[in-house]
């Protein structure tokens, strides 16, 4: 299957995105902010469709919109918790706005499907390099802040007392999540970002007890799911996003087996 250019591009793009998503996702799951990833993806849809309408590549609209939303959510911080009605309405409106933008655009159906569910087989070489650049920025930012971020995630009140700014790291982290979400949307679409960001990370946290091994396993699982999904898509002609998501769910369920077995044994 590697004799085709589009397959080589797909594997290259999936590799970059899976490594970034698996790593960033680990911290996202640890902080209990998985919903933020989902929300940012929805908001990104508006940005992507809006930029198609004005003739800019949708990836940049996605990046701009998710970054703005991520930083905004970070600044609101605690106030955002338990505002599920407000958040739900904002998300619904984001999708609706995206729909309206697409309505004004002629090639409606293909664009909508690609944005919502991704199409990794349509990625070209310039996009691969853009993804590589964005991914490098995300991982570099995460590497710089990961130690205080971990402290602030595990023991926020003590971290605050020790001089770690919860808001600063909250905002920076959501900016990283926003970039990662925009990347993931290129592979699996805005609706299935969970598959790459949350599935592998949640599975890794079921199986490992130390942070470094957890991050490595999470990135490896994401890579396995992305490659496996594209390969299965090639041989079955089913959508790659379906296979990636299916693998993500399967791996997570398998990862919970040890815990279920432990719970079964009489203590």
């Amino acid at each position, binding site marked *: 299957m590697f004799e085709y250019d589009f397959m080589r591009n797909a594997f290259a793009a999936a590799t970059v995105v899976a490594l970034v998503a698996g790593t960033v996702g680990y911290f996202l799951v640890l902080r209990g902010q998985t919903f933020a990833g989902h929300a940012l993806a929805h908001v990104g849809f508006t940005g992507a469709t809006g930029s198609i309408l004005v003739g800019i590549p949708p990836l940049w609209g996605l990046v701009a919109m998710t970054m703005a939303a991520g930083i905004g959510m970070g600044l609101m911080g605690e106030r955002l918790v338990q505002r599920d009605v407000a958040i739900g309405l904002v998300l619904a409106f984001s999708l609706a706005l995206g729909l309206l933008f697409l309505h004004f655009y002629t090639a409606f159906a293909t664009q909508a499907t690609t944005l919502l569910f991704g199409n990794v087989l349509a990625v070209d070489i310039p996009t691969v390099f853009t993804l590589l650049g964005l991914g490098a920025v995300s991982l570099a930012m995460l590497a710089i802040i990961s130690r205080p971020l971990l402290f602030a995630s595990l*023991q926020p009140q*003590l971290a605050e007392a020790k001089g770690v700014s919860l808001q600063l790291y909250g905002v920076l982290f959501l900016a990283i999540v926003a970039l990662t979400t925009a990347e993931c949307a290129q592979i699996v679409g805005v609706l299935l970002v969970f598959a790459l960001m949350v599935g592998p990370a949640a599975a890794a946290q079921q199986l490992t007890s130390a942070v470094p091994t957890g991050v490595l396993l999470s990135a490896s699982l994401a890579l396995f799911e992305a490659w496996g999904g594209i390969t299965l898509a090639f041989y079955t002609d089913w959508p790659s996003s379906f296979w990636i998501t299916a693998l993500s769910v399967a791996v997570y369920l398998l990862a919970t087996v040890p815990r279920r077995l432990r719970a079964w044994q009489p203590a």
Partner: protein
Amino acid sequence: MNAIELRDVSLTLAGRLVLSDISLEIAAGQFVGVLGPNGSGKTTLMRAILGLVPPSRGAIRVLGQAATRGNPSVGYLPQAASAVPQATRLSGWDFVASVASGHRLGLPILGRAARAEAERALDLVGARKLARRPLADISGGERQRLLLAQALIGRPQLLLLDEPLISLDPRHQQEVVGLVKELQVELGITVLFSAHEINPLLGAIDQVLYLGRGQAALGTIDEVITRPVLSRLYGSDIDVIRLRGRIFVMAGGYDVERDAHRHEAGSPHEHGSHGAHADHV
């Protein structure tokens, strides 16, 4: 040198005056029990000493310096349980070690000095083995040990422990108090230990800091746990009853310290402790 000095300090929380015009000095090397009803300002006072809540009036000095955030000489055990999601298998070691140089930028990979510091803190509370287990699998008392280890990282001279006995049964309460007392003597540090009830702290503390209605009283148990002082702090007629080495603070037939306890959390441990309490009486 005094560990803590408050000069005409008033503290406000969300527009409500919590402590009003308090002046007091706590000498270094004291084990101080911090008591008072819910909302009397125990947590706010600790957060002010940490530099997280600036006083609306007056000045706070900690170990000879103005109270500032990030003072490495102050250790802290926050009241709320940790934010670690139950679903992770994260080990106690990672949880405790995240505090060692946790404020510095970079990857969370510990250098030799930070590892040694985390190991020392775990040894101090006897939790080296315990730390290998996932956080999700350990009991409340074991969790308090790990939180105490976190507070000890950085070799603090002053330890602020906010309700470390909450939701522990009497046996584990005694264990935690005994451990803190040992550490306080061994390391020669000052400890502020807040609790809902004086009895678990009897025999361990040197002084009581009792808060209520914006006021504070500091002194030995015999000086503070008295009818006139507590009646002033509770704003109602209080009886102090001593029975077989235990102290009951009663208002109109109710045990007010116990009562505050009951409102706080309805965990099974809590009810267990009530049963045991009744047996004692």
